[in-house]
């Protein structure tokens, strides 16, 4: 799904008026709400999510995706819609963490690779990409070009093996308590 817009902020991904929920469910329906629906709530034909020729689990977006607010609701909306991977040449930090913490893989590619992905989908709306987390590679199946991407080993293990951050943090309970006792200045 191509979205060649830069600086897509979290207010576009999920506008603030949809943040009143107290659960993690249902945000996918309001993903990109103000770009996706008109005032009456009807789908806008010119927005990519409403264009039936595009589909898939990979969102390809312009650089600096996810800037702005820390709302994890943005990751919940993207995951809730059905995306598993977001590809861009640049992600905002907090969004990147939030995505990883919800099993969504942010893939950083070069500007040139990203431009080629947009060009490929312009030419062929059915163009696909293949993302392999294990080998950390992404392939533009239209041109056959590939790139490798970075992810830290811990987060990779979390995604592949389903490791849980809170279990991990609490497995270090002794270390936390020792830190509290030994620190130079305690607040």
């Amino acid at each position: 799904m191509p979205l060649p817009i830069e600086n897509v902020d979290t207010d576009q991904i999920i506008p603030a008026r949809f943040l009143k929920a107290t659960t993690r469910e249902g945000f996918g329906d309001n993903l990109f709400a103000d770009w996706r629906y008109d005032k009456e709530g009807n789908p806008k034909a010119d927005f990519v999510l409403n264009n039936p020729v595009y589909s898939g689990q990979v969102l390809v977006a312009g650089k600096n995706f996810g800037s702005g607010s820390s709302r994890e609701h943005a990751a919940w909306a993207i995951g809730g819609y059905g995306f598993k991977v977001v590809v861009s040449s640049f992600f905002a930090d907090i969004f990147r963490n939030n995505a990883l913490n919800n099993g969504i893989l942010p893939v950083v590619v070069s500007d040139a690779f990203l431009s080629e992905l947009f060009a490929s989908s312009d030419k062929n709306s059915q163009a696909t990409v293949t993302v392999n987390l294990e080998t950390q590679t992404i392939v533009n199946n239209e041109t056959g070009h590939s790139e490798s991407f970075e992810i830290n080993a811990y987060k990779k293990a979390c995604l592949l093996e389903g490791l849980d951050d809170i279990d991990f943090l609490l497995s270090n309970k002794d270390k936390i308590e020792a830190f509290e006792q030994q620190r130079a200045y305690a607040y």
Partner: protein
Amino acid sequence: MKTLFDKIWDAHVVTTVQDGPTQLYIDRHLCHEVTSPQAFAGLRARGLKVFRPERTTLTADHNIPTMGQDKPIRDQVSRFQVDTLAKNAEEFGLIYYGLNNPKNGIVHVIGPENGYTQPGMTIVCGDSHTSTHGAFGAIAFGIGTSEVEMVLASQCILQTRPKTMRINFEGKLNAHVSAKDMALYMISQLTTGGATGYFVEYAGEAVRNLTMEQRMTLCNLSIEMGARGGLVAPDETTFNYIKGREFAPKGEQWDKALAYWQTLKTDEGAAFDKEVTFDVSQIKPMITYGTNPGMGMPIDGTIPQLEDIDESGKISFEKSLKYMGFAPGEKLEGKQIDYVFLGSCTNGRIEDFRLFTEYVKGKKKADNVTAWLVPGSWKVRKQIEEEGLDKILEEAGFALRQPGCSACLAMNDDKVPAGKYAVSTSNRNFEGRQGPGARTILAGPLVAAAAAVNGKITKP
């Protein structure tokens, strides 16, 4: 030789995962109603308690009305969210400043004003403007809800160490230029992603000369250029601000704290991954013309031409100007506006209200302008009244509202109607940020005051 950031970070490392993130201890955790309910639900599902309840403080601010706070919240969904926060506070034994509590207010206003925020701390909150607290020489940054749950469960967070950047502001500020203008200028130069991956230290003569509240405004906007956070080394200005506040150290504890805080500065010769210097004499009162905070210019400036924009940014630039109803090359000075918003964690403190009031004193609000003046906390509102600013504002045709985030993110009823222009002292001019279709022009309190009185964009 260490930077200030290195010193604070290193003092909070519990352990580091091989090839992975650092487990960082968190001294102060602030929570609000919007980004916490799923975290508390997660704790409940795991059967966990809050690990260090005394280190977490709760307030309701994002999703509350700014009128009639003594009555039940009319919007049922909002009321349920605020009630959920109160219930979570009770169930998990946490301090909660709910509506009508004299300590209630915007999370980044009440932290400093009650002395929760101190130099050398690590501070997190499920809100990107947590960077505000960096003004005290703290590592403060926004986190997502999964991370809120981590902090509640373990008082720790997993973080990858960011790179460091120092931004020097040299020289003396021009008249009518405030920290907001410094920040909007900086973001216009570095772009909204220009500091992504970095933690910033603000330094230089112009930063040293800022009051604490001005430093908070500057640090607040760090996230708008993508920075993880921004901090200022603590000095006498910092210590004088903190001394005597309710949760600040007292007596012997104060002496001990002060001795430690005085060591919190970047060693001479310490290396930063990136360093940038600005000459503040170049900075004029700033406004934004587009739909991200990096699209800023001097108030008498002109919007760039399409050919000045990088190829990959052209679609976004045109989309942005179309949304704002502006044209490339257009000047905005003299442009009629409809709304003025004074408030938010960026510019909702007493000094902001003093600046605004000083300008409008003896003048009248323009008839075409709807003005929302929203103090950042009840304490700010009380001080406004004690100083008699409310009377001056009233004579000029303005009314004060009750504290909250209000029109900064427009989760409540304070929404700017579609197509209307708002000069706003808040932090984001994103599409729809202040209401669906609303057009936001970011500025400092003085430019906002001039707009409110003249009904159009004018130099203060």
